[in-house]
């Protein structure tokens, strides 16, 4: 199967049943809290440590 056969012309959804196209039913308030907590945690872990020149260290 070529790349086009796999992904193209709507074939991907025909070839895979788990493409995940359900409408969102997420609770946006809960989502926002989760997202904020995630980024805060990543910040606290040092993901965005940078030097005085603004260059990222990690």
């Amino acid at each position, binding site marked *: 199967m070529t790349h086009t056969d796999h992904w*193209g012309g709507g074939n991907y959804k025909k070839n895979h049943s788990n493409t995940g196209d359900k409408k969102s039913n997420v609770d946006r308030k809960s989502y926002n809290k989760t997202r904020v907590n995630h*980024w*805060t945690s990543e910040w606290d872990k040092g*993901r965005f440590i940078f030097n005085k020149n603004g260059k990222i260290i990690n």
Partner: protein
Amino acid sequence: MSDFFCQFHCRGNEEYSVIIEDNELVAYAYLYKGEIIVGDIWLYNQASTPVTSEWNKEDMPFLNPLEFVKNNIEPIKDKNEIALKWVLKKDKEVDYVLIKIRKELIAKLSEGATPGWSTCVIKDGPLAKVL
């Protein structure tokens, strides 16, 4: 400026989902396991790409600075522009998820990968690694 928000469930394991959010400034995809974010990846900047890296905690999620951006794609307008390929392990846990936008491979998410991988960055950074 336009915003976008959509959740895509993994039909092979409903515990997993991907949420793609464009908040009119920047777009990210998040891999969820239940209600916990287990992976994230920057997708594109909708606001002007910053020339310098100014990382203030209050500004999260961040725009990706110019030094990292190779290709800044157009914002997502509709969920039909998005195709996900879920790859599962034998135990049905998610191995990785590929994200295509308008038929172009853009990003890869995996559990524990913060950040994940992107075809739109020129070098590894805190928001994306090179795919």
